[in-house]
């Protein structure tokens, strides 16, 4: 495959010289799994359709849902919840993480409390949210925001705490302090770790989305999961899982592109 496409000049990294070579490499294992799936359900016939439906059945289920418009509704509302929850959680995490990372007073005052809240497994908040906010849109977005908050908070906070003191001192020695020091030295220095935190938070957001939708919802991918389980529609169940994988991977890849751009500028 590579021999016909690779140019001689780029011989040492042939896989890299193929346009989209990395993507092809990354797609190899999913395609292999798909092949195996087809093999054990079709020609080998090792499973009944209620245990493991064939890939074609799952695709048909998807097409069926697409035709009556339900698929877009499920995917749309789930993506919307994740984006809102991730956004609010990340912003809160950035703000509180910056405050505690930069101010010793705020850190001393608030870090033990935030630490205690972090120690509570986030799903333990569900009953309280149900009682106080209800599990409508607000409650779901709030739960996702809680899930997204802590990875961002932790990464911003610890990154600001660990900015190379040599660089900060050099900045001070050249007359930088306060906001100018923050924007010149401290914030740029934490860009890489903050992006790791954001990506972790995005993964958490999808996790909490499914948790929220499994608990109580009338649409969304989590609802599709629980509904399909109740109806014994394993094909739709698998469809929801595949869609979650694709959506999670896609949003992560988009964030990854932004991260690479940021790292090019700041690292």
């Amino acid at each position, binding site marked *: 495959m590579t021999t016909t496409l690779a140019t001689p000049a780029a011989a040492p990294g042939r896989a890299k010289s193929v346009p989209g070579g990395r993507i092809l490499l990354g797609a190899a294992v999913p395609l292999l799994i798909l092949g195996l799936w087809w093999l054990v359900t079709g020609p080998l016939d090792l499973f009944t359709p209620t245990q493991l439906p064939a890939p074609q059945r799952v695709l048909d289920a998807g097409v069926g849902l697409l035709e009556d418009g339900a698929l877009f509704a499920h995917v749309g509302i789930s993506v919307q919840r994740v984006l809102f929850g991730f956004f609010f959680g990340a912003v809160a995490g950035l703000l509180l993480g910056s405050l505690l990372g930069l101010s010793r007073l705020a850190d001393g005052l608030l870090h033990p409390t935030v630490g205690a809240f972090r120690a509570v497994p986030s799903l333990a908040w569900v009953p309280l949210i149900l009682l106080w906010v209800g599990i409508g849109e607000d409650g779901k977005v709030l739960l996702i925001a809680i899930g997204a908050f802590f990875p961002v908070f932790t990464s911003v906070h610890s990154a600001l705490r660990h900015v190379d003191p*040599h*660089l900060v*001192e*050099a*900045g*001070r*020695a*050249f*007359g*930088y*302090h306060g906001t100018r020091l923050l924007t*010149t*030295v401290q914030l*740029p*220095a934490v*860009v890489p770790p903050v992006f790791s935190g954001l990506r972790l938070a995005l993964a958490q957001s999808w996790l909490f989305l499914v948790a929220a939708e499994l608990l109580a919802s009338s649409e969304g991918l989590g609802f599709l999961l629980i509904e399909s389980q109740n109806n014994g529609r394993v094909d739709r169940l698998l469809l929801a899982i595949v869609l979650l994988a694709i959506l999670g991977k896609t949003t992560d890849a988009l964030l990854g592109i932004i991260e690479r751009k940021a790292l090019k*500028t*700041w*690292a």
Partner: protein
Amino acid sequence: MTSAPALDQRHSAAASTQPVVPSETVASESLSVSFNDVGRAFDGRTVLRNVSLTVTPGEVLAILGSSGCGKSTLLRAVGGLDEGFTGDIVIGDSAVTRYDERTAVGFQEPRLLPWRSIRRNVELGLPRNLSKAEGQARVVELLELVGLSDRAALRPREISGGMAQRASLARALARQPGVLLLDEPFGALDALTRLKMQDLLLDIHAQTGTTVLLVTHDVNEALQLADRILLLGGRRSDTAEGATVKSLVPVPGKRPRDRAATDLAQLRSELYAGLGVDSR
């Protein structure tokens, strides 16, 4: 190392046109530094005590001492990076202030911001009151002075350690400091690069005329660069804790000195002895 020819060229050019007329944009108004009974203790442990001397404007003073004797502590006190000292330090005609803007520090590590180009790192040293055009002109001239004009767009990780240290030096000079404070700036460089950097520093001193306080543990470096050498250490006559002025000796001869000059051998032996090292 590809820039070495450029460095040599620039160096010989500077040598042939001596005495160098200080350039208007990089020349500094050099200031005196007076230490009056300066001491410093950390957690009750005395590191420095009774340091008194005056550095004249434009002088190059090498501060020599074994490691941990408080050389850097003294230097940081002059830069206003450390305020815990006792006694008085006066720069020009007023006491040193926090992060004193009349001084500029060249640290042992280059301490360049990794996400900024070399040019933007040098800009970091510019005084705030300078207009944008003046600042740009000064940065261009300084990059030229340290031989980094063709590397200005690169990031710190894309250049060698010697180049990074030159960039750090240019950043310090961008302030037009009255006193340039150098804390073992060449300590981490290989021997050859260090010699080149020493020549560069002499060039810079000839062009800017700034007062230089240079902390070093290298006797030869001190002999090569300094007008006077301050040797810090414990005095044999008393047993009190902490380092103080062990000796303050002028270095004979005019710069640039022959690195192999025999008349410095006696002084070299004395300095090694003062550091507790047998010179043979």
